[in-house]
């Protein structure tokens, strides 16, 4: 069992390494993508400077906490898009029959599939996340908590993408639904929880678990409380198991399209 896990980790790391090397063939494009993504994210600071010039507190967040919220949102987005890019293309992969490529490999189908390519600009998101943490205030425990919450949040985002994409096994073309849920997760993540009221807040702790990916982590980094660490760990484990369960349940219904193509 442990050897199997070790082998899977080695294969996944190699897969990501080769995907990155492929993207680095054109160094100018590689660096431009990263730098411009950082600048692209930084544009939004203007929005918050203006909002905080109107009000001292937005949704219960101070300006520094909003920077941290942005940092956390960028970090979770970056990790999920860099290491697990194809989880956001999974619906299309299932529908077009490209899953055949991974079924014949002697490794975990889901992990091999979602880690087969990388999004270079996501490196810019991760760097931007760290810059925001620096502006919030660097302390040894905040760095550790930030990286821990960033990883957990990314795994939850990836799990949500897998869950909604896996519906394609039953209902065919569901990429629009999966894309909509993914974009909901991204759009809401950069606004303080306190500005929303009513039913939306329930969504943040159920089918759009922004509570785990961004809101609780911001509270946790601001005021360390162990109960929130346990909440994040349990929430992350729950969504990962649910994603695996639904994907493999659906995989039993998968049938090849006999698509012939070359993977270069």
């Amino acid at each position, binding site marked *: 069992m442990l050897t199997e896990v070790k082998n899977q980790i080695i294969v996944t790391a190699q897969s990501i390494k080769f995907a990155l090397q492929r993207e680095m063939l*054109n160094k*100018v*494009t590689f660096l*431009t*993508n990263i*730098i*411009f*993504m950082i*600048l*692209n994210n930084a*544009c*939004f600071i*203007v*929005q918050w400077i*203006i*909002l905080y010039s*109107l*009000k001292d507190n*937005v*949704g219960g967040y101070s300006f520094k906490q909003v920077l941290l919220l942005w940092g956390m949102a960028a970090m979770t987005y970056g990790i999920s898009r860099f290491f697990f890019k194809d989880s956001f293309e999974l619906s299309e992969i299932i529908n077009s029959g490209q899953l055949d490529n991974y079924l014949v490999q002697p490794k975990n189908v889901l992990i091999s599939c979602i880690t087969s390519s990388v999004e270079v*600009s996501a490196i810019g998101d991760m760097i931007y996340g760290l810059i925001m943490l620096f502006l919030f205030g660097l302390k040894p425990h905040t760095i550790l908590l930030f990286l821990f919450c960033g990883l957990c949040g990314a795994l939850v985002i990836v799990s949500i993408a897998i869950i909604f994409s896996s519906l394609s096994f039953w209902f065919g073309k569901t990429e*629009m639904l999966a894309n*909509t849920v993914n*974009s*909901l997760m991204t*759009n*809401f993540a950069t*606004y303080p929880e*306190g*500005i*929303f*009221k009513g039913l939306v807040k329930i969504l943040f702790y159920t089918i759009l678990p922004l509570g785990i990916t961004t809101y609780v982590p911001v509270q946790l980094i601001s005021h360390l409380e162990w109960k929130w660490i346990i909440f994040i760990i349990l929430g992350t484990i729950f969504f990962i198991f649910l994603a695996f369960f639904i994907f493999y349940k659906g995989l039993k219904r998968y049938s090849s399209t006999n698509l012939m193509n070359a993977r270069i």
Partner: protein
Amino acid sequence: MKKYLYIFKSELMTNLQYIFDILIGFISYCIMIFIFLNLWNYIYSDPSEVIKGYTMNQMIWYVIVTEILWMSLGSRKLNRKICNDVRSGNITYNITKPYNYVEYILFSHLGVTTLKFVMVTILGLGIGLIYLKSIPTLSFVKVIGVLLSCLFATIINILLITALGLFSFFIEDASPLFWLYSKAILVVGTIFPIEFFPAFLQPIMKYSPIYAVSYAPAKLFVDFSYPKLLEAFIIQGIYLIVAFLLTHWIYRKGVKKLNVNGG
């Protein structure tokens, strides 16, 4: 001109066949409006409060109009198409045809945008009316003025995005330039009117593309006056000419560098 009108019409008819995709796109619009409704509700502690010359209703209508312009544009798709045309060499198919590539892009994308604009406008006005229960009162002539300003804003936007996409002739992937442009429009032009920025920045912003593509039509909708209309038309007219010439210039320079291998 006739051939470009035909391109516009055929693109419009094609998009009518994919109306479901456009309807799905409405979800994104609704999400953005929902977020801004909540945000401005929070910022305005009292709906009758006036911040920087805007009431809460005016502020929300401003965002509804700027989001209509941005969402109906399909800017990301346009940028991707131009970058892909240049990088893949597909642009050679257009070069050999009896039309200019820039004008072809302009009219074909206007065909895509027109249908979306009509549908998103109906949706936006519906959301605004349901939520705010009032709408700025405009006469027929004023409505025509606002719509013309929206048309100019859209044409300028398409030309500027085309110009950025054509940079793919010089650098392999020009998408990062578009990211910055889109975020500048989104943050500076869509969410806040110019009056919300520091006084020293306002004159600069008034003469920036943000005024022409975003602020002018939305401001006319929420606070119409004929001097403002005239000012908007003058600035948009100048931007229209500059953007048109600039895009053609980049295209002419870039196409000389084109090197397509095989087929």
